[in-house]
């Protein structure tokens, strides 16, 4: 266990972001007597977690699982239909316009597409300095130019880049500009929505290192959303796996990767192509079909239509969560009886017998 993980385990550190029973339904909710019935698409359901200072929470899942919706709920770019989001103890959902604006100083976001997330008509200096129009107290006007230079250097660019335009930069460099913009307001939390998936392999590693360096230097916390499980393992302390809007498994990153308890987590881990032509003898837990439409999710356990271990109970009853999904928990009827060792040999290095 690293120091960080120990601190997390003993609950010593300050909670900077808390989500409680967070949910989002697109479309409408109607009342039928005393009951509220969803007549829409449930994109996110019952998400609970606490994020500590200096910690990274990884969030993985396939396209359409609701991870980007969750990201938008956390910064209140979208209003949730239920639950609450607290940043440093302050409930974002109760805030009115100006107060919300002020609260956003604490929580920033980095987007996937470094091309569409920067205004092409602004110079890099203007992009990075723009947040200070909203928060003029952070840096006095006289020092802004110098601060922009510092931020550019912090993300590995040159001071002189402040006068250039986004189109003069490559994808990786633009992602660095987006990071500098997020850092300009000295936030406590940065939500990173697939920040490296649009980048080439050789550049991806640079940006991951940069994010890790910034965390070490500033103590910022990340919620890191990605579909690449190797990237998530590298950067995260804890991880949560999402399927059709629900967290199905979560825990410390090493625990989840080395002893997954949910069949979906296992399928994701065993499907990753391994970078070693001589280690190809593991079993792959293959899933039939594709993710069902969230418009019409399966009954019971939402994963049962693709699960090789599904039994009758899975299609009838929604599985209860065993443990705490944010600490170590799983949402599966059969979790306690399944052994996934043969599927994760490439991760643990343990050769399963049999």
């Amino acid at each position, binding site marked *: 266990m690293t120091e960080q993980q120990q601190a997390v385990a003993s609950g010593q550190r300050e909670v900077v972001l808390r989500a409680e029973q967070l949910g989002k339904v697109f479309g409408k909710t109607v009342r039928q007597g005393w009951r509220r019935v969803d007549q829409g698409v449930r994109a996110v359901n019952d998400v609970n977690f606490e994020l500590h200072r200096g910690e990274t929470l990884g969030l993985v899942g*396939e*396209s359409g699982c609701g991870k980007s919706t969750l990201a938008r709920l956390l910064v209140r770019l979208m209003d949730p239909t239920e639950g609450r989001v607290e940043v440093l103890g302050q409930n974002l959902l109760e805030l009115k316009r100006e107060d919300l604006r002020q609260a956003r100083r604490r929580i920033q976001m980095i987007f996937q597409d470094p091309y569409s997330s920067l205004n092409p008509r602004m110079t890099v200096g203007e992009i990075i300095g723009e947040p200070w129009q909203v928060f003029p107290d952070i840096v006095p006007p006289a020092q802004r130019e110098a601060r922009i230079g510092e931020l550019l250097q912090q993300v590995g660019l040159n001071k002189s880049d402040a006068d250039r335009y986004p189109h003069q930069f*490559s994808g*990786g*460099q633009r992602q660095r500009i987006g990071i500098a913009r997020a850092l300009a307001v000295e936030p406590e939390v940065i939500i990173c929505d697939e920040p490296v998936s649009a980048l*080439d*392999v*050789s*550049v*991806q*590693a*640079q940006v*991951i*290192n940069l994010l*890790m360096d910034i965390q070490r230097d500033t103590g910022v916390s990340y919620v890191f959303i990605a*579909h*690449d*499980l*190797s*990237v998530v*393992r*590298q950067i995260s302390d804890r991880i949560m796996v999402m399927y059709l809007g629900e967290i199905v498994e979560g825990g410390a*990153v*090493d625990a989840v*990767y080395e002893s997954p308890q949910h069949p979906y987590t296992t*399928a*994701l*881990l065993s*499907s*990753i*192509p*391994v*970078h*070693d*032509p*001589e280690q*190809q*003898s*593991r*079993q*792959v837990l*293959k*899933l039939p079909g*594709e*993710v069902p439409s969230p418009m019409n999710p399966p009954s019971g356990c939402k994963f049962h239509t693709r699960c090789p271990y599904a039994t009758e109970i899975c299609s009838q009853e929604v599985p209860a969560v065993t443990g705490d999904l944010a600490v170590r928990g799983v949402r599966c009827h059969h979790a306690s009886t399944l052994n996934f060792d*043969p599927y994760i040999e*490439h*991760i*643990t*290095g343990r050769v399963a017998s*049999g």
Partner: protein
Amino acid sequence: MNAMTEARTRVTGDRVDVSAAPIMSVEGLSVGFDTPHGPVQAVDNVSWSIRKGETLGIIGESGSGKSVGLETIMGLITSPPARISGQVLLDGQDILSMPQRQRRQLRGDRMAMIFQDALAALNPSLTIGTQISEVYRIRRGASRQAALDKAVELMDQVKIPSARSRLKAYPHEFSGGMCQRVMIAMALAMDPEILIADEPTTALDVTVQRQIMDLLQEVRRERGMSLILVTHDLGVVAECADRAVVMYSGRMAETATMRDLFRTPSHPYTRALLQAMPRVDARLERLQAIPGTPPTLSHIPSGCAFRPRCTFAQPRCAEEKPELRMLAAEHSAACHFAEAIREETSHD
């Protein structure tokens, strides 16, 4: 171990006869374009070959020239406007010098290509059935009904469930993975000897990527087809390919069997790429990132294009363009210090 053999991605006995003559060989292929920013060399003196039943991986980042080279082979890029030189030999005949009419006969029958964005590659206004069966009607003169029957057969082969009822569906009604299957079905229609797959799984989720890679390997094995797999994902190549070509800035950096490429990478770029990948089996203190960014084609550095990002670079690298040199059987690299690097990596 019995339970495991079934799930093995590579099956012993599936190995390709390495002494066999290549089915296609590319010799000194160069492709250039005139752009508003001046002439660019997208592919520069590339040579490789592929044998029957073999899977050849072509690895490279965006702008490395991997797609342009293959589109030229397929005849999708022609001269003019491109400046093309070199040869692509199929049965000893140079297909680049053939007239278009003759090349058209090669597409489908001898070679076929599938693309990264399957939804964009399909015609949104025609049904799946029409698109798959089209080729039978045009090339084989089949009747409408016979062609549709063949389409159903193909859809079954690529495991599209309830094929017949989906003949009338449009591409937008299919998911990304299903569209990729439709494209594979179209490519297989004329039973080609070589299938070129350009980033076939990049846009797909991991579990679906696994399904598509399995499908490609299965059809390759069943038909004795050769597969050229273009990707930036080293993992996909490691699992599927027999040999690979690593491209950088339009040139070949290295080519080797998969074992050699991963055990004794001899070009600094290959080595750096392998080290830069995050690992699923361990969390590293720090990733060994490659500094800088890949060059744009209009500003390729002098000498070795990888030089500005290379930890082994010497003054010589700025002056002399390294040629591809053979280091061992089936292993070549284009670096002045390839032998020394190979020596070093084999001791690691």
